[in-house]
C-alpha cells in the first residue's frame, strides 16, 4: 500500500484537510479491519465488537458502501471499498479548526447533513419518504426497549408532520407531502444545535473525529 498511501497523503491534505498523522492512523486501522487486504467488506465492519450495541449499525455500515458518499455523482453501492473510499467517508467527520473559515464550516456542515440524509434515503430518490423515515426511527429506538414499534412509528409520523408543516405551511387541500427533500432537511435542521457537543478532546491519542461537528455543523 506504500504507493497509494503517499498518493493519498496528497489527496487527503489537499481535499479533506485531514492531516498526515490522521491518515496514517486511519490506514493502520484500515489494515487492521481488513486483515491486511486491499479492500474492506461489510462483514469486516460488522465484526467490530464495539459496534454491536449501536442501534443504527446497519445504516452506518451501509453509508460506508454508498457511492453517494464518495463525492462523485454516482449512485448505488460498493461491495467492497478500498482505503480511498474509506477515507472519503471518514472525511465527512473531520473537525474544524480555529483556521476554518465560516464558509468552509458551512460546507462541512452541509456535507454532514448530506451524509445523514443519504443514510435515511435508502432508495436514492432524493426524498426521505415516510416509510424510510419510519424505518430509520424504528431502528434508532429499537435498542431502548420500552418504546415499541408503534410509538416509534408515531414519533416518526410526528417528526414528518413537523417537516411538512414547517416547509409547506400552506398546503392546498389536495397536496400531498411525499417526503423530505434535502432542502427541507437542511431547513429543519438549521437551528439544530448539538448541545454538549463541545466537549474536551481526550488528552491521549490523535482523534480524527472530533466531536465538535457541533458548533459548526450541529
Amino acid at each position, binding site marked *: 500500500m506504500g504507493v497509494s498511501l503517499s498518493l493519498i497523503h496528497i489527496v487527503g491534505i489537499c481535499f479533506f484537510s485531514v492531516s498526515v498523522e490522521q491518515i496514517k*492512523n486511519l490506514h493502520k*486501522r484500515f489494515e487492521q*479491519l481488513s486483515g491486511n487486504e486491499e479492500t474492506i467488506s461489510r462483514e469486516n465492519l460488522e465484526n467490530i465488537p464495539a459496534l454491536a450495541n449501536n*442501534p*443504527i*449499525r446497519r445504516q*452506518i455500515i451501509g453509508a*460506508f458502501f454508498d457511492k453517494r458518499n464518495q463525492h462523485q455523482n454516482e449512485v448505488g453501492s460498493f461491495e467492497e471499498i478500498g482505503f480511498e473510499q474509506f477515507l472519503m467517508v*471518514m472525511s465527512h*467527520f473531520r473537525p474544524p479548526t*480555529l483556521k476554518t473559515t465560516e464558509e468552509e464550516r458551512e460546507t462541512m456542515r452541509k456535507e454532514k447533513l448530506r*451524509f*445523514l440524509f443519504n*443514510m435515511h434515503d435508502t432508495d436514492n430518490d432524493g426524498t426521505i419518504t415516510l416509510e424510510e423515515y419510519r424505518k*430509520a426511527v424504528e431502528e*434508532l429506538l429499537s435498542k431502548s*426497549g*420500552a*418504546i415499541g414499534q*408503534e*410509538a416509534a412509528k*408515531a*414519533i416518526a*409520523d*410526528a*417528526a*414528518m408532520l*413537523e417537516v*411538512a*408543516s*414547517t416547509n*409547506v*405551511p*400552506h*398546503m392546498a387541500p*389536495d397536496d*400531498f*407531502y411525499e417526503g423530505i427533500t434535502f432542502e427541507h432537511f437542511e431547513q429543519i*435542521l438549521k*437551528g*439544530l*444545535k448539538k*448541545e*454538549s457537543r*463541545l*466537549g*474536551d*478532546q*481526550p*488528552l491521549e*491519542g*490523535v*482523534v*480524527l*473525529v*472530533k*466531536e*465538535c*461537528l*457541533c458548533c459548526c455543523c450541529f
Partner: protein
Amino acid sequence: VVAVCNISSQNRTRMGLNTGHGSSIKEVPIVTFKWHHVETPYLIALWILVAGLAKMVIEANHHVTNVIPESALLICFGFILGGMVWGADKVQTFTLTPTVFFFYLLPQIILDAGYFMPNKLFFGNMGAILIYAIIGTCWNAASLGLSLWGCHKGGAMGDLDIGLLQYLLFGSLMAAVDPVAVIAVFEQVHVNEVLFILVFGESLLNDGVTVVLFNVFDAFVSLGGSQIDAVEIIKGIISFFVVAFGGSLLGFVFGLLVSLLTRCTKNIQIIEPGFIFVLGYLAYLTAEMLSLSAILSIVFCGVCCQKYINANMDEKSVSTVRYTMKVLANGSETMIFVFLGISAIDKTIWVWNTGFILLTLLFIMVYRFIGVFFLTWILNRYRLVPIGFIDQVIMSYGGLRGAVAYGLAVMLDENKIKEKNLMISTTLIVVYFTVIFQGITMKPLVTWLKVKRAAVTELTLIEKVQNKVFDHVLVAIEDISGQIGHNYMRDKWNYFEEKWMSWALMKPSVRKSRDHVFSVFHQLNLKDAMSYVAEGERRGSLEFIRNESAFIDFKKKFGDEFSEAMPDIMANMSDDHGAASDRRRDPVPSVSLEMHEQTMKGMRETEDINTHHLLQQHLYKGRKQHRHRYSRSHFDVNKDENEVQEIFQRTMRSRLESFKSAKMGVAPPKTISKYSKKDQQQKMPNGKSLDRSKSYYSGDEDFEFSEGDSASGYDASGSTFPMRVTYRAGAGIENPAFMPDMDPMTPIQIPPWLMEAELDSGMVAPSQRAQVRLPWTPSNLRRLAPFRASAQSNDSFMLADAPATQQRDDEELPPPPSPPPPPSNRDGGYM
C-alpha cells in the same frame, strides 16, 4: 436575615423571662405586648419580607433592570436600608455573618445550581471546568497574594502589618469567582451555553477550591511562618485534594441515597420533596462536619440525584421540588445581595488604604485575564472546539467576586490578622466593583463584542431524533476508526448507567420510559394537549375547537370506513358478545356533527344552556362531606380528582350527545369502544358486574369519546379530503399520537399522505394499537385506581349516570383493562 444572631442570645434570656411564670403580676393581663418574646423570628421574617419587596419593586421596572443587573440594584437597595438602620441605631445591627451565610443562605443556592445543572453539558466540559476551577483559582490566589506582598515590600501601600502568608490567605479568599453573582449577571445576558457552563461551572467548583485553600492558608497562618516546612506544605497539598475529592464523593453518596429513597416514597408523596432538601442539606452539613468541601458536596449531590429523583417522584412532587428550589435559591440570593449592601454601612469596618485597595482591584482583573488566556491557550491545544478569543474575554471579565469572599473575609481571625478590617473593606469594594460595575458593563460588552448568544430554539421532534442519530453515527465512526474518544466514553458510560445505575436507583415502572427522544415526544404531546385545552377555554366554551379557521367535519363516512376496515375487531367482538356485535356494526362513531363556523355561533347559546343544565343534573350530589375534609397527607382530597374528572367527562359526553341530537336530529350516539376486547373478557365473569364496572369507566370512555371526537374530526377531514397543514410545528395537534390512549380509530389519524398504507396496516391490528400505552402512563394509572375501589362514588355515579349506563349496556362492552391514561387527568384539571 438572621444577621440578628448576635443579639439573639440576649433575646433568648429575655424570652425566658417573659415566658416564665411571672410571680410579680398584680392582675390577669388581658393582652400584653411581648416584643422581645418574638423578636428574633419576627425580625427574620421582616427582613425576608423586606428583601422580597425590594426584589418586587426592582423587577417592576424593566427598563432599569435591562441596564443595571438586579444584583447591583439589590446591593444599592441594601445601602439605603443600611443607611436607615445606621441612622436609627447609630450602629449596624444587621450584618451578614459567616454562620448565617454559610449555613442558611448558601446551601440552597448551591443545591439549586446542582439540581438544575445541565449534566451533559457540564460533564462534557468537565476537563476545562476543572482546569479553570483548580489551576485558575490557585493561580489567582498565589499571584494576587505574591504581587500584593511584593508591592508591600516595595512600599506601595504604606505601613501595614501583613506578612506573606497573610497575603496569600487574602489572595485565596479573593480568588474565587462567585456563583451567586455569576448566575445573577449571566442569566440576564444569555451568552451561548458553552460559555455559560464554563463560567458557571468554574464558579461553582472553585468555591469549593477557594474554601479549601482558605483553610489551608488559615492553618499556615496559625502555625506561623517559622513552623512551616516541606512536610507541612505537602500535607497542605494532600489535604487540598482530600477535601475537594472527599467532598465530591460524599455528595455523590448522598445523591445516590436520595435517589434510593425516592424509590420507595410512593405512599408519602406529600413529603417526598422534603427528602431532597433535607438530604441535600445533610450532605452539606456532613461535609462541613468532616471538614470536607461542603459546597462541592452539595453540588454533586444535586447533580447526581436529579435524573433519578425526577424519574422516581410523582410529577407533582417534581414540580414542587423545582419550585421550592427556586423559591429558596432566589430568596437567599436576594437576601445575600441586600445584606451585602447593608453590611457596607458600618463605620467600624471601614479602613481605607488606597494602595492596597486599588492594587487588589487591579491585580484581580489583570491576573484573571492572564490566567484565563493562558489556561485557554493550553486547553485549546486539546479541545475539539477551541474557545474563541471573544469568549475568553467574556470569561475573564465575568470573574465576579461575591458573598463567598465576603463571608470568608469576615471569618478571618482578628487576633492572627491585624488588618482584618482592611481586608473586609477591600473585599467589599471588590465585590461592589465587580458586581455593580462589571455587571452593568457586561451586557454592552457582550453586545459590542458580538458574543455568540444562546439560540432560543423551539423544541422539535425531528431535531431530537436527528441528534440521536448523529450521536450514534459519531460513536460508530469512532468505533470504526478505532479511537477511544469522547463519544466512545460517553457511550460506554451511558450503557453502564442505563444498565446498572438506573436499575438500582429507579423505580421499575419508570425505568423504561427514560428515552430522550421519547421524553421530547411526551413534552410535545403535553404541550399540544395544553394548548388544545387552553384554546377551548379561550373560546369560552366546553367544546374544544382547535383552529378558528378550520371547521370540523365529523363525517359519518368516517364511521363507515371504520367498520369496513376493521373486520378484525368486529369479528373479535362477535365472538365475545354474540348478538350484540351486530349492533356495533352500525356506523360506529356517529359523531356526525357538522359544525361550521357560522352555525356554531347560534348553537352556542343553546349549548350553554344545555351545558348548564347538564352540569346541574350530573354533578355529584350529596358528596359535600368530602369537600371540607382536610388531610395533611393528601393534597387534593378536597377535590376528589376522580370526581372532577368524571364530571368533566360526563359533561362532555352529554353535551355532545344532546348537541348532536338537537342539531342533527340524530339519536344519541354510541360510545366508541376503543379497547381490544380479547383479554379482558375473563376478568369480568358475569354480565352484571360487567355493567357495573363499566359504569365506573364510563367517565373515561366518555372522555375518550370527546377526545375521539376531535381526533376523528380531524381524521375524518383527513380522510374525506386531505388535511390542510396549517399548524406550526410543535403545536401540531395533528400530531398523530396526540391522544396517547389511542383507540382503533387511531389509524385514521395518520396524515393523509399515507392514508392508504395506514388503513391496511393499522386497521387490521387494532389490538396493538389499543395497547399503545405510552410509557409514561404508569404513574398516572395509579391515580385512577380508586375508580375501582371507591364504592360510594359508584352508587351516586350509577344513579346519575343511569342513561349512560343503559346505553352502554346495549353494547355490552367489557371495561377496558385499565383506565385510560393521563391526559384525562390533566384535562380534567383544566376544566
